[in-house]
């Protein structure tokens, strides 16, 4: 479960910290464990994701997942990044039975092991669900 890549992102989070400007900000919490994330999204022309900035607290899985998301989504497009979110969600909710599509997921494939721990799946998904929510609000 604790892949080197996850630990690396946890110890050295990428793109952490809330930045201006942004189109939408969301705050998501995981009530059972108290993990939380605040996320901002800034979109540009043609559905380009200019920035994903975030802050939060929680376990290594939830914080590393936010860092990996930042890397994957920033510079991508809304359309492309949503397909990564969908694949990541499918992997996480697959109870460890789903074969991950590494081409779509990139570094996020490191979280495959988390899917075997139902109690931790929501940790991995916290930032990704926040991102999806932020996109909806940005486009509203």
């Amino acid at each position: 479960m604790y892949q080197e890549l996850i630990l690396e992102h946890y110890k050295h989070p990428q793109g952490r910290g809330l930045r201006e400007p942004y189109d939408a900000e969301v705050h998501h919490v995981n009530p059972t464990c108290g993990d939380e994330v605040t996320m901002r999204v800034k979109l540009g022309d043609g559905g380009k994701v200019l920035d994903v900035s975030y802050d939060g607290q929680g376990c290594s899985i939830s914080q590393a997942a936010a860092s990996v998301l930042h890397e994957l989504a920033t510079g991508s497009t809304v359309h492309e990044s949503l397909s990564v979110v969908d694949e990541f969600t499918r992997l996480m909710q697959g109870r460890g039975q789903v074969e991950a599509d590494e081409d779509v997921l990139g570094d996020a494939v490191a979280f495959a092991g988390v899917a075997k721990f139902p109690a931790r799946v929501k940790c991995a998904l916290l930032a990704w669900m926040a991102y999806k929510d932020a996109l909806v609000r940005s486009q509203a």
Partner: protein
Amino acid sequence: MTSAAPFDVERIRKDFPILSRELPGGRPLVYLDSGNSSQKPTLVIETMREHLAQHYGNVGRALHALGSESTEAYEGARDKIAAFIGAPSRDEVIFTKNASESINLVAYAFGNPINTDERFKVGPGDEIVISEMEHHSNIVPWQLLAQRTGATLRWFPVTDEGRLDIEGLNELVNERTKIVSIVHQSNVLGTVNSESPILARVREVGALMMLDASQSVPHQAVDVAELGVDFVAFTGHKMVGPSGIGVLWGRRELLDAMPPFLGGGEMIEAVWMDHSTYAPVPHKFEAGTPPIVEAVGLGAAVDYLTSVGMEEIKQHEKELTGYALDALQEVNGLRIIGPRTVVARGGTVSFTMEGIHPHDVGQILDDVYGIAVRVGHHCARPLHLRFGIPATTRASFYLYNTTAEIDALVRGLHHVQKVFG
């Protein structure tokens, strides 16, 4: 029953079949989560199996042989529990689903239009007092009561050491106070609260007092008559009994004055289409078919604990706690949340580790070493907010734990630090 032999933890461990199982990957089980729920001895498992296999029938309402055997076992369990907690009368022992239900039952008697007893009248201007170290089960029912009635919810603060801060007692508990409900032993801090100074003030102002004894009844001899409070709640599954059975003890005279909580079968005396009269306590509060086998199992749990001896159990846990407090304080960056000595303290030790989230601590302890601890806020979120932390890791001990298991915990924590270092 008196203690048959000197306390021998290895002998006791043999009474709990689960403790000798292996986890996947050949990990031995190190169970340090009894504050969450305890494991069950063979006596409890076999007594329940035997009841289901040989004596099962509904209680109170079936006149046949099985009905009477089942009723005898169910009511016999009540006798055992009454004796175990020193209840002046067996009828003061009410079976509930758990401690939460016991507390809700009492809270529901207050500010209830069908209860005309002055002591239970609650409205705007009246006050309910709890503490900052409560489990959610001793917070939310009182919040609901305050919302229903317009009363004000107030609470004792907690000191940095993790003790109840009763400096403001005389102001906090005053003539507007209707009920004070506090935890006997904290499920996070391990702190054992002394009820006596609070009770003295409660009596001065004519209020009532309840203790949430979910974490004390399993670990020390609790005598409700000696405590002198009005209500005591606890649960079966934390005291080597099954889940699904809890207890409310209350003073007879108060229970008589209280309205039923749930309406239904067997809680009545007579029913007409437009009204009913109710059975005397305890059955007034036991609507519907109760958890029969669970009650019988709890009776066996009490037999088991009594045969080991509550004093012996308390002493064993005190030794474990002292050993754990010393060993854990040697771990760099580990901060104990709660008293750091064994004085007025039970075997529940919660802590944080610098830079490492409790979920990660718990996951690695389990995955690598088979060590079961609880991580999170342990249903005591306000207490964690008080200490400015989102969560803790909690090790909780019981009669079957050993110092070797505490050594394993410490080794596990060093490994956790290596992974995240």
